[in-house]
């Protein structure tokens, strides 16, 4: 199965970003394909490479690691501008791109899953 994923909420405030990461890992472990992860609205905050929670799970690193593993992880450019997430603050393996990427993932996915509060 080809899955697309969208995350609408930021890290730590709600469970959405955590669950999205776990969903992607579980789907891959079952042999499914992830066509892309789109970080939208506050979801783009998970792409900040300076996330550094003392003694807690690092959600920013988790998305970066998905990108490093070959999953296309995209943060919405406009949403990043709304939130002051300048390109030099962005995690190495998360791309900044527009809604065209969301459209691409929607077109490729057989199932599309949104994680939000």
């Amino acid at each position, binding site marked *: 199965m080809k899955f*697309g994923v*969208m995350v*609408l909420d930021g890290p730590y405030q709600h469970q959405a970003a955590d669950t999205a990461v776990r969903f992607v890992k579980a789907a891959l472990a079952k042999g499914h394909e992830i066509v892309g992860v789109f970080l*939208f*609205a*506050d979801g783009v905050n998970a792409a900040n490479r300076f996330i550094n929670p003392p003694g807690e799970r690092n959600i920013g690193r988790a998305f970066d690691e998905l990108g490093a593993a070959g999953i296309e992880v995209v943060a919405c450019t*406009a*949403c990043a501008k709304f939130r002051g997430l300048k390109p030099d603050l962005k995690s190495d393996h998360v791309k900044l791109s*527009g*809604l*065209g990427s*969301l*459209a*691409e993932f*929607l*077109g490729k*996915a*057989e*199932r*599309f899953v*949104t994680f*939000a509060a």
Partner: protein
Amino acid sequence: MSARIAFLMRHSPYGTVYPAEGFRAMLGTAVFEMDIVIVFIDDGVYVALKGQQPGGLDMKPLGEGFPGLADVGVKEFYVHDASLAERGLSASDLSVDAAVVAAARIAEVLAGCTAVLPF
């Protein structure tokens, strides 16, 4: 199966960022010639209300944007009948020509879509 995307408008227009981002996502994906369906349900019916005046919030009226979606080929709107009735509204209060339908019909519409995006 070509992509047919439903956008669920579930929240009132200004309390959260969801409806505004949903609207941007409709515009941003419709230009890629996707088949787009918009469903107003629960407090989401307020998103399409005519005459919104959010100037006091330093925000722009969201409802006025929906008629312009026709320019990018988005013309299929549904509104949940009970959600309208519970709020004392009717279809004529909305800024777009939406089909007033029961929950069962909305379920059918969503079942016919390749993806449902809840905002």
